[in-house]
């Protein structure tokens, strides 16, 4: 699987390259600046997935995020995993806005857990979603009537579902059987009045849209 990596800190860039290579990824380009990233993403040979730091030279603002958004406008559904030292609801929304999935948005700390990080990269490359637990936690703390009807267990499941985990992964994390998880998800979808779907990605997007949408 071919990966483009955009990170301006040398140590982190090397660390990530090693980590990805060790897990069988092929790092085709590792770039340092926003313009280079945009060229690598929109050039003739697009990667299977891009891992992008939000803050890049030359402006050291949200160069990486802007490049990612521009590239996805040019190539809808291009899988991109955005890494950052901090997560913002605002950025998560912008990344999810086109509704095509294949998007990840994680804190840089999540690299510490290599297995989960590689799992997230694979999920995004396969067209899925990987949202940072911090983003989801903020969404779940909002005062919201329908959400308060969920049991604590259902809220746990909803949180993991919103992060982009599959039923199997949720079952493993919460020490439940897959059957139990699918029962919880059905109940959640009924309580929140959402159309159930077997497709993991569509399900995640529906949940995220719901959590975002209830803000207004």
């Amino acid at each position, binding site marked *: 699987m071919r990966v483009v990596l955009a990170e301006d800190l040398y140590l982190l860039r090397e660390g990530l390259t090693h980590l990805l290579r060790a897990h069988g990824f092929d790092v085709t380009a590792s770039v340092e600046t926003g313009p280079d990233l945009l060229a690598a993403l929109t050039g003739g040979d697009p990667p299977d997935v891009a891992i992008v730091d939000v803050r890049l030279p030359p402006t050291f603002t949200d160069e990486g995020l802007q490049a990612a958004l521009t590239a996805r406008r040019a190539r809808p559904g291009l899988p991109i995993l955005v890494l950052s030292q901090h997560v*913002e*609801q*605002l950025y998560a*929304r912008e990344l999810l806005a086109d509704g095509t999935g294949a998007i990840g948005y994680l804190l840089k700390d999540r690299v*510490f857990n290599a297995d989960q990080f590689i799992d997230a990269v694979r999920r995004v490359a396969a067209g899925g979603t990987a949202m940072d637990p911090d983003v989801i936690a903020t969404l779940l703390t909002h*005062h919201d009537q329908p959400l308060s009807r969920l049991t604590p267990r259902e809220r746990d499941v909803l949180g993991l579902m919103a992060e982009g985990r599959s039923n199997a992964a949720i079952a493993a994390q919460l020490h439940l059987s897959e059957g139990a998880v699918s029962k919880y998800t059905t109940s959640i979808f009924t309580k929140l009045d959402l159309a159930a779907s077997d497709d993991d990605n569509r399900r995640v997007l529906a949940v995220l849209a719901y959590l975002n949408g209830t803000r207004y």
Partner: protein
Amino acid sequence: MTAFRTAVRQRMCLLGRVIALFALTAAELALLGLPASAIVVPAIWPVVLLHGAAVGGLLWLWFVPASAVFLVVSRGLLRVHRRLVAEWCGVQIPDPYRERPRLERTEHGWYWNGHDYNKYRWLSRINLWLRWRGNDPATWRDLCWQILGIPLSVVVLPAAACVYGTLAVVRLCGATALDPLFFGSYVVAGAAAGAALVFAYVSPKQMLSWHGLTARWLLAPTERSRLRTRVARLTQTRTDATDAQATELRRIERDLHDGAQARLVALGLTLGAIERLLDTDPAAARELLARSREASAQALTELRDLVRGIHPPVLAERGLADALRALALDGPTPVQARIDVPGRLSAPIESAAYFAVAELLTNTAKHARAAHVTLTAEYAANVLRIEVTDDGRGGATDSAGTGLRGLRRRLGTFDGTLALDSPPGGPTRATLEIPCALSSPKTSTSSGRD
């Protein structure tokens, strides 16, 4: 016909204002009668000598409260006058008065009023008050206005005085033949007053603006006193700013010292232990490694929170408009954001505005029990204006905590203001205004959902 009627009604309304302002000016003049009556006191001394000290005491008893009432009432009346002039004549006249100095108590229990020490509080206060009033040039300018206001306001009266003066000179010169004319001058004076009324009716607007201009001449602060007030305020806000900066640096130092720094020391120790255990007890080493990974993650979280408190990354990356949008998304209460700031402001102002809004939203979440919060930000005429409104229970005051006062102090550094309107039962509206200039055109994108 109706158009004519409305025109007449409007004119009568304006005329009413002219008359009301003149009446007020006349009342201010009449107030002078209170201290002026004191002149009667020495005039009556011979009577006192004849009738005993009791009567004299009574007269002094009259003089002191009369003067005090004069001083207090005239300032109040002139405040009303300034407000009316601003509203009716369209001439803004700021209050020229100096702030009243505070009475300080020394450690020996004496009172210091800025000039001398006094054992008694009331005596020191009276002394302080009299000095404060007496040394303020505005007091004397007020007095000038009270004397000159009427003649200055009614342009016709000086003219009438001229006519009188001329006639008096003519009479002194012995031109008795003109006597009937002198008598006739009463008619002239009456005619002048009548002319004033007619003029006021024909062009009440001119009358009002003339009054406004003369009032501003004497009632507005002089350039000197304006500068004096400004210097005092700048000194105060500079002290506040340096204090706040020092406090902030100390907080950051403490957070780093007790947080990330301590964690890194612990991490170093654990790594040393792992190095020793690696050959002898690999299982224990692995456990320690897992724990040190957790410790480093925790250090990162703490650093992240600290960074947010110093300068939020979203503010650095996107500027105020998007930072406010991000803020609106983060709180537990739904916040509807309408942000219209078309570019970047200077960094210190963006930061001050961001933290002010963050504090207001936190207050709302903590105290207001609101279901909906609205956040609007707009930039117009070189003023950044931000409003936070909630439908909570209201009753927020400055005295409730140090939060709002601190906020006001921090905004003061930028000549910013915070207005709070929070009747018990709600709703609460906090409006902050900061004069500033845009530095660059908009570079950020918006989420498009606001």
